[in-house]
């Protein structure tokens, strides 16, 4: 029994038992469902072994939405706990676990996955190619992400959740102050999904640099592709930093090294430093694709070309470089003195300049346009004002002397939520509505979509504006409760009400998906929004090979020009198309990585060695495997093209 004791949750409560039951029931339901409907083979052939970027994108999307609800439930519980003074709904320990997992899940497993979903689905279509550069690695990326996400999520019911904040500052996250395996989960799960993200980065850079349609020079790429290229560049250079930091943290916790300890020459500040060397670029990894999405949507629904294309590109490049020069602003208060803080204040505020350029370019894209208020456009229009408020408070936070007062307060919490929610979450929802017809062949309901927008937009303001005030009134973040005399009660109550509104908004989106699956008409055209870029030039649903003939591009808006000026996109003849074979290897590696991570978390060394060997064997098998893919013959392509993309 001693062996099993380690898997017990140290602070079990009703929420944990409830989730144990829920997880067990869901698993059983899924297994029974798959068996009853005889879908195991379908699941394996069409999804688990797929290397198709579109399907991988959809799997990312489903995971991201699941994680959104995990993180969202955490958020509601936090707001409920702090809604009134001296609340006892949650204990301190529970609250600490919840805000930690909320942060990690939302950033790493929700927002990142959502971005990956849209990038995976859209980028190859947008640059007019048939797949990414390394389709199998792409599948591996997804399964590594999924293994990391699952590993992180089981911490809730096996062994205990991490509880030292999403930034996991040492020595609090060290073994002296965090004895449970929670922080091990954090270190290992982030490591595994981080490797997946890094591989995606390499994959997409290569794809975008080498596989664009003929004629599409870099300066003729759609803006979302540009943003994806730069995002992946940041990923490739920022994630190794996280890898190193997590490796050190893991060694500190499991091998008793002294990287971040407070004795024997360890340096706790080094963790904070390395975490934010990665952490700040990470913010831009999240926001830049969102900027790309807004550029696409705003120009589509303003029925105009994107204003200032070149300055949009240059400003993103500037942001990508500056994003690596500002990280110290996350710990201005660590004592490094006025000179260092002044330097990093200035670099921080400098980011406002390229960001401002983008805002004005969007405004001028709207100007002289003909604005159609569809759901994706509403989200994009809602983004501009709310993000502006989030952004200007960012400049305020960048001022070191003032930051000494904002740091670690609800003011900061308000700022980054007002940047990330309109910046990233709105973009993801907008992108979801916008590309949904391309993904699934029907539209999401517009009426429900607009309702969800108004709920979310108003509730975001309601939830986070009061935090500016309570922050300036001295409410520190991460406090599980506060006394009545502080006077924070009213502001937190407003936040709680806003949080309920947000929950309703997100529930409406889910209801919308359900409703549209059932009732939405299926006979939609391939280009339902009258859009401008190449992903709309192919049939809906998109055939496996994306384009029967690779398009030829002459301008930044090749598809639009083909509609308006009659430029011909597809000039060549249909030839047999080379496709990669499906492979179970990425999925199997994902499972082995999950076991590897689990063994690492609990220090099960034999299992760890075995799974490491397993990973090595997988890599060796891959090296020896001779897989040349297959060709789709011309007559089959022609048959598919005639039926408008529908398979068989």
């Amino acid at each position, binding site marked *: 029994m001693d062996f099993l004791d380690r898997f017990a949750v140290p602070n079990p409560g009703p929420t944990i038992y409830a989730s144990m039951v829920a997880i067990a029931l869901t698993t059983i339901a899924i297994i029974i469902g798959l068996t009853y409907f005889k879908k195991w083979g379908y699941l394996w052939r069409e999804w688990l072994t797929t290397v198709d970027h579109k399907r991988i994108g959809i799997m990312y999307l489903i995971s991201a939405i699941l994680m959104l609800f995990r993180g969202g439930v955490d958020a509601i519980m936090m707001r409920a706990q702090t809604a009134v003074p001296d609340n006892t709904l949650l204990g301190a*320990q529970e609250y*600490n676990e919840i805000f930690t997992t909320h942060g990690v899940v939302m950033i790493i497993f929700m927002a990142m996955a959502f971005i990956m979903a849209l990038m995976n689905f859209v980028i190859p279509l947008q640059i007019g190619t048939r797949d990414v550069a390394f389709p199998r690695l792409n599948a591996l990326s997804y399964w590594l992400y999924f293994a990391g996400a699952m590993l992180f999520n089981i911490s809730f019911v096996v062994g205990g959740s991490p509880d*030292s904040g999403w930034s996991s*500052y040492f020595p*609090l996250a060290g073994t002296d*102050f965090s004895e449970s395996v929670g922080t091990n989960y954090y270190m290992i799960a982030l490591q595994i999904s981080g490797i997946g993200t890094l591989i995606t980065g390499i994959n997409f850079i290569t794809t975008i640099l080498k596989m664009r349609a003929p004629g599409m020079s870099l300066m003729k790429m759609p803006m979302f592709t540009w943003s994806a290229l730069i995002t992946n560049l940041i990923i490739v250079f920022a994630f190794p930093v996280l890898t190193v930091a997590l490796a050190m943290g893991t060694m500190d916790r499991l091998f008793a090294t002294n990287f971040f300890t*407070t004795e024997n020459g360890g340096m*706790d500040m080094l963790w*904070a430093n390395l975490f934010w060397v990665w952490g700040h670029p990470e913010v831009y990894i999240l926001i830049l694709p969102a900027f790309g999405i807004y550029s696409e949507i705003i120009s589509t629904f303003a*029925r*105009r*070309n994107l*204003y200032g294309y070149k*300055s949009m590109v240059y400003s993103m490049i500037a942001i990508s470089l500056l994003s690596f020069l500002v990280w110290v602003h996350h*710990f201005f*208060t660590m*004592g490094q003195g*006025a000179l260092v803080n*002044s330097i990093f*204040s*200035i670099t921080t*505020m*400098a980011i*406002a*300049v390229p960001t*401002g*350029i983008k805002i*004005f*370019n969007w*405004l001028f894209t709207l*100007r*002289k346009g*003909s604005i159609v208020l569809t759901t994706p456009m509403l989200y994009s229009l809602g983004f501009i*004002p709310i993000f502006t*408020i989030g952004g*200007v*408070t960012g*400049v*305020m936070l960048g*001022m070191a*002397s*003032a*930051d*000494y*007062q904002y*740091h*670690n*307060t609800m003011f900061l919490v308000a700022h980054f939520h007002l940047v990330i929610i309109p910046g990233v979450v709105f973009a993801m929802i907008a992108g979801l509505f916008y590309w949904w017809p391309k993904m699934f062949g029907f539209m999401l309901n517009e009426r429900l979509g607009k309702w969800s927008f108004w709920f979310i*937009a*108003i509730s975001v*303001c309601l939830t986070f*504006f009061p935090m500016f*005030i309570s922050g*300036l*009134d*001295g409410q*520190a973040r*991460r406090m*599980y409760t*506060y006394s009545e005399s502080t006077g924070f009660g009213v502001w937190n109550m407003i936040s709680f009400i806003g949080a309920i509104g947000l929950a309703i908004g997100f529930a409406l989106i889910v209801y919308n998906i359900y409703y549209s699956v059932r009732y939405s008409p299926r006979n939609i055209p391939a280009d339902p929004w009258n859009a401008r870029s190449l992903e709309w030039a192919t049939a809906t649903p998109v055939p496996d090979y994306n384009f029967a003939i690779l398009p030829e591009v002459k301008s930044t808006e090749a598809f639009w020009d083909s509609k308006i000026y009659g430029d011909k996109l597809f000039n060549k003849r249909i030839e047999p198309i080379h496709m990669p074979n499906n492979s179970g290897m990425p999925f199997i590696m994902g499972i082995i990585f999950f076991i590897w991570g689990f063994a690492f978390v609990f220090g099960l060394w034999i299992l760890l060695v075995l799974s490491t060997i397993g990973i090595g064997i997988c890599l060796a098998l891959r090296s020896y495997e001779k897989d040349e893919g297959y060709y789709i013959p011309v007559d089959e392509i022609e048959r598919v093209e005639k039926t408008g993309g529908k398979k068989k």
Partner: protein
Amino acid sequence: MKLKTSFLIGMFIVVMVLTGCEPLLVLDPKGPQGRTTANVIMISIWTMAIVVIVVFAMYFYIVRKYLASRQSKDYVPPYIEGSVKLEIIWTAIPILIVAFLSVVTVISTYKVESVPEGYEEEPLVIYASSSNWKWHFSYPEQDIETVNYLFIPTNRPIEFKLYSFGPISSFWIPQLGGQKYAMADMVNTLNLAADVPGEYSGRNANFTGEGFAQQTFNVTAMSPKEFDKWIRDIKSTAETLTEEKFDELLQPGHLGQSTYKGTHLEFSPPPENHHSKEPLKDNQEEIKNQKIIKDDLSNDEDHSNMKH
């Protein structure tokens, strides 16, 4: 437009609250450093308010005017590449704003990092150390120590020496000035001063685990005369802080306020001088020796604990 109204109401509330319906702690400073920061904050709020107003005005004007529903059916939006002139304008103006704020930031950062201006007197040194989840305040000059409360004289600069017996904590008295981290392997210096007598709240602002929410302390600023009287009272009434007592205080948990004669600095010296870049050999030796002594002491502690 719902959006517009909700924003206007939101902005209205923010502005109303900030401008003083009810003073927020950070904007109601009681000392020179806090006043500097509050001024910086107000400068930045007003500057940013201008930016927000300009962007919002343009935004609402453009969105209203160019809605498809307000235009004729055959309106075809023109193709416009961009305008170098306009783009230069909206690059240059933000640069100017950022430059202005940078100057404000640099000046004020140096200001709050040093002894407050116009305070000529020798600063009162107080060692503020955090442990889970308490604050210990040692007054080496007066040779007394308090737990979870702080008495300071007004109109005299206070030099806080911050360090921690556990996780990274952040020492923060919103009405007197900004915060700074207290960490286990080094000592940070924070210069504050109070010029208005009164009671202020202080807390640890950096998450330190389970008891973090209640890791607060009270600050009472009083005239130097009263302060001296308080010191004398304590000297005559408080018990002496022994090493055993201090170890007891360090145990994780919450404590009320308490006062002692003597400080813990003698038997548990603060982690100073850990940051020398290239410590000279003798210096290193010295540190090593100190460590050995410390280790011996901690061994002794272990023995004494076992006796208990």
